[in-house]
């Protein structure tokens, strides 16, 4: 088969699956929906593997599929750019998506929206593939918004839950704030480069390195700095960087399979991918890179802290995702784009694994998500237990596991970076190692080890962890106690959890394998070989982190062995040990700390008050402003003074012609026609 048709096949196969499952979701039986969508994604996966091999053999592609629009001198096309970066993303997206599709058969089996769900996740796969395969900014933006749409649909999948439909709107709007910056960035690209085609833009980028733009007063800004920061604002929305991170924890309202696919493995990494793709632009602005690294560092550390106090199993993993996205962003800021993509890949596998493991626990616990009600599950759910342990070890960066290679490379790269802000970032990512290990194993121990706390008379709904999204205040329809058929059960007294069916555990095992090995295999060729040559541009003289990293690299085994004597390893070890001591040995200590540092707990529990501030200032402010403009501007001034004032002025005319006012609209219209005719006649006669 010709390669170009194969490229087309990759996004179109899932789209066809989505259309079949979506348009006919009310007619077709369930097996048709999942067979069609799984077949579509499987085809995309196989095709991606073939393309990956082809790219490794040195064959890349950059060309249009069709012309979308022309205007003036500008051309907009839909087209593909297939290179090492694209191929990597295609493999990650299709493989995780395939696993999630299979898993969904088990997870959603009792849900009435089964077919609709399959349609959405296949549509997501299509959108994400269009995003990563694009060869221009327009299509990138299309994919960017399309994944946002599907995320919106899936977060609000259970549309009768007030929290879910609040969370999905919040997610869409916060993302739109990012897109606001993103589209202005794209606007600058078009205005100065005259095209949105990646290749042309990247080739000509150095010519604009010294170009300045005048935005405000007399100050001249570097074009590249402004453009890159605007583009990065888009990434901050999609990849949930502070302060646009607020939507991601709430997105956990969606079913767990999509938390794994969209809100951990793929969509949220779109921002990371985008910045790596734009490396030829970001390399031209140290200011933008500093901005990136500082934002990333803040996200990596401070979102990690929040993971410590969460009791909802999915929210712990969600904050861990935020923190890991921060790590990737830090890598971008350090000009270690390849490392960011590498961490993106390993993270996709182990974080999808952790989420799907959490989902398996949730099934076993009959949809109780509070880790305080769990404990000792390893006895009842052995496969889930082992695979979750693998995922956690990978996440905290245990040597030889996938996460170790990518995360350690990030830490080292930041150490060698000379970008302003890299010192702060280095401290943040080091401290983050300890925090990550602590909250990950706090969750692990509370869920799988220790006393069996399930089946006891707890809060009745098993949903105590969901006490933190009463943000729907302006609705007055806040109702967290709703019991729908598929939620908020919890185990009855005496009932035991059970291992999930094979469609659930198989994806866990399949994801556990790359979570262990992909780092060891990948690091040499991906980071220090020619894999990203010609794809990711690094100005090695100005930003030497990557080159220094390569000098210190002597093979994957040596790296892991060497790590045993470095700070990150012992920080992670300390985090695990402390969590074991706190939650297995002396549970009274965390309680005492919580009581002693009440204020700190309150700050963390309120997530640094971001939500409250946004709610009051932006949402509340917008409504106040809208009401003010409407009542004050439209009603009082325009209608009150201008319109009705004129009306009064013509009042005396009205008094004269009152007898014409018969109250029938016919006569008004008739009068108008007569008026028109008279006007014309007057004209004809006068001249």
């Amino acid at each position, binding site marked *: 088969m010709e390669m170009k048709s194969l490229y087309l096949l990759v996004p179109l196969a899932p789209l066809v699956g989505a259309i079949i499952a979506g348009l006919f979701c*009310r007619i077709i039986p369930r097996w048709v929906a999942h067979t069609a969508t799984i077949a579509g994604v499987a085809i995309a996966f196989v095709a991606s593997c073939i393309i990956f091999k082809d790219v490794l053999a040195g064959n890349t592609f950059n060309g249009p599929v*069709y012309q*979308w*629009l*022309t*205007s*003036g*001198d*500008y051309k907009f096309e839909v087209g593909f750019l297939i290179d090492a970066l694209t191929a990597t993303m295609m493999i990650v997206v299709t493989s995780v998506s395939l696993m999630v599709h299979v898993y969904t058969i088990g997870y959603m089996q009792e849900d009435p929206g089964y077919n609709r769900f399959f349609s959405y996740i296949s549509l997501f796969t299509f959108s994400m593939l269009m995003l990563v395969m694009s060869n221009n900014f*327009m299509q990138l*933006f*299309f994919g960017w*918004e*399309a994944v946002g*749409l599907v995320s919106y649909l899936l977060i609000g999948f259970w*549309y*009768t839950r*007030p929290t879910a*439909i*609040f969370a999905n*709107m919040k997610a*869409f*709007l916060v993302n*739109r704030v990012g*897109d*606001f910056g993103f*589209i*202005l960035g*794209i*606007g*600058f690209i*078009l*205005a100065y480069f005259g095209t949105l085609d990646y290749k042309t833009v990247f080739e000509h980028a150095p010519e604009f390195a010294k170009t300045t*733009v005048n935005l405000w007063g007399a100050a001249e800004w570097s074009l590249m700095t402004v453009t890159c920061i605007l583009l990065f604002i888009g990434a901050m929305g999609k990849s949930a960087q502070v302060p646009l991170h607020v939507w991601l924890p709430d997105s956990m309202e969606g079913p767990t399979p999509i938390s794994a696919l969209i809100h951990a493995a793929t969509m949220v990494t779109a921002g990371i991918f985008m910045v790596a793709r734009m490396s030829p632009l970001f390399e031209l602005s140290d200011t933008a890179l500093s901005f990136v690294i500082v934002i990333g560092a803040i996200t990596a550390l401070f979102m990690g802290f929040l993971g410590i106090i969460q009791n909802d199993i999915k929210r712990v993993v969600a904050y861990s995702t935020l923190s890991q996205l921060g790590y990737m962003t830090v890598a971008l800021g350090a000009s270690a784009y390849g490392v960011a993509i590498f961490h993106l890949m390993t993270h996709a596998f182990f974080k999808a694994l952790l989420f799907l493991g959490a989902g398996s626990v949730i099934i076993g616990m009959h949809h109780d998500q509070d880790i305080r009600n769990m404990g000792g599950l390893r006895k009842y759910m052995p496969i889930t237990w082992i695979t979750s342990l693998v995922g956690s070890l990978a996440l905290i960066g245990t040597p030889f596991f996938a996460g170790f290679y990518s995360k350690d490379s990030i830490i080292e790269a930041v150490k060698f970076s000379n970008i302003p802000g890299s010192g702060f970032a280095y401290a943040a990512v080091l401290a983050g190692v300890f925090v990550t290990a602590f909250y990950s194993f706090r969750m692990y121990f509370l869920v799988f080890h220790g006393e069996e706390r399930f089946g006891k008379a707890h809060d009745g709904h098993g949903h105590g962890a969901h006490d933190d999204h009463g943000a729907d205040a302006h*609705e007055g*329809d806040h109702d967290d106690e*709703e019991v729908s058929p598929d939620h908020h059960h919890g185990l009855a007294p005496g009932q035991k959890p059970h291992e999930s069916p094979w469609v659930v555990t198989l994806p866990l095992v399949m994801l556990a394998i790359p979570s262990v090995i992909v780092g060891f295999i990948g690091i040499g060729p991906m980071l220090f070989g020619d894999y990203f040559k010609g794809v990711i541009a690094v100005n090695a003289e100005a930003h030497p982190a990557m080159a220094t990293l390569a000098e210190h690299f002597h093979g994957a085994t040596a790296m892991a062995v060497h790590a045993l004597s470095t700070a990150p390893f012992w920080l992670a070890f300390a985090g695990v040990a402390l969590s074991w001591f706190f939650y297995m040995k002396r549970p009274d200590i965390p309680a005492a700390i919580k009581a002693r540092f009440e204020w700190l707990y309150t700050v963390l529990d309120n997530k640094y008050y971001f939500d409250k501030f946004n709610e009051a200032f932006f949402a509340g402010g*917008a*409504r106040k*402003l*809208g009401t003010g*403009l409407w009542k004050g*501007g*439209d009603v009082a001034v*325009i*209608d009150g003074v*201008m319109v009705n004032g004129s*009306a009064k002025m*013509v009042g005396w005319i009205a008094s004269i012609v009152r007898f014409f006012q018969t109250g029938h*609209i*016919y006569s*008004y*219209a008739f009068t*108008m*026609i007569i008026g*028109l005719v008279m006007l*014309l006649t007057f*004209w*004809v006669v006068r*001249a």
Partner: protein
Amino acid sequence: MSGYLLSLAIWIPILAGLIVLATGSDRNAPLARMLSLAGAVLGLLVTIPLWTGFDYATSAMQFVELKPWIPRFNINYHLGVDGISMLFVILNAFITVVVVLAGWQVIEQKVAQYNAGFLIMSGLMNGIFTSLDGMLFYVFFEASLIPLYLIIGIWGGPNRVYAAFKFFLYTLAGSLLFLIAQLYLFINSGGSFAILDWHQLPIPMGAQIWIFLAFLVAFAVKVPMWPVHTWLPDAHVEAPTGGSIVLAAIALKLGAYGFLRFSLPITPDASHQLAGLVIALSLIAVVYIGFVALVQTDMKKLVAYSSVAHMGFVTLGFFMFNAMGVEGALVQMISHGFVSGAMFFCIGVMYDRVHSRQIADYGGVVDKMPKFAAFFMLFAMANAGLPATSGFVGEFMVILGAVKYNFWVAFFAASTMVVGAAYTLWMYKRVIFGKISNHHVEEMEDINSREFLILALLAAGTLYMGVHPLPFSEVMHASVNELLRHVAVTKIQ
């Protein structure tokens, strides 16, 4: 035959309207409906050769018809279309079919008169888009309001007289000024009403400013631009569903079209001089109206305000004087025809079942009307400018064109990305999602095959234009480029 295509596009709907009117009382309602549909479909069919036979290469008027009308004043029956106007004729004919279908089971009183009103209005509006004679344009421009008054007045809501009066008051001032400007041009062009002659007429700066302002008042009311927009929400609220669809999809385009046919080419220097004013008003429409839309409790008012904001993009695009801006604005106008028409139809579908337009009276509609909810989601997303829908294309082009023009103009225009999504999705959330809020919603039935057909037609247009907008923009290139070239040359001698 092809020599009379434009006349057919105007007179077939009008003739059909008169025939429908002749069926008289409601005893013949089924016949009136069938005749109306036949007339509307025939009206659509005769416009299709306009596109298939359109010459993309020229900016000259095509399908021209020229007959003397009032020879004494050199007033001619002069018709023609170019890349700017052609698509609106087709859009208008298409929307007429939609409107006839939309009233099929809903309008049960004065059926013949209702349908005749829409058919006649459709013909008159085609007259506006195709007139090349100033006086002919003016006659169509004024006459097309009469059916709209009647439709609002007879089939409208309780407050219809106030709405009609407000509309009248606004329009009156604009119309008079427009007429005076036309007189000036007639006299100074040595007695010509040909719009194309006026395009070439040298005019001193002072006069250009006055003419421009006269045009501005006339067209701004129709668009409507801030601050002369307050008639629109009232008119929409009082109008029946079909009236709202035509009002939003076609009537709002008349004013915007006027800017391109009159203001820019006749007074290019004044247009440049006062572009800042128009752009400022446009941005106020986008930002201010966006926030006003956010707090509306009546769905129709919300979508009406949203229309004002979307039309703000149109006037903004025109006055940036670059191809992306003007073409983006034209694309936005056509897209808005599909999307706002569909939004008003969706509200009508719910109104027919619950008899309320208040957001608070709904909630959980998706449970009872899943098919409807899916369509409504598509149009809501198109209204919020999501890529792959037509709503994205125009906004994208205007915003990108604006960055080149001035960053801060683009900045305020792009704020619609957030605000537009906020008011649309917040409404959608409160109406469609959630638990079933009351027994009225409980009793709602999903869309029938007629409603499905209408929504599917509009959805097809919205999606096709979003995925493949090239055919639409290609039609415009020659005419828009010629217009921009023309506007760049001064007329002051």
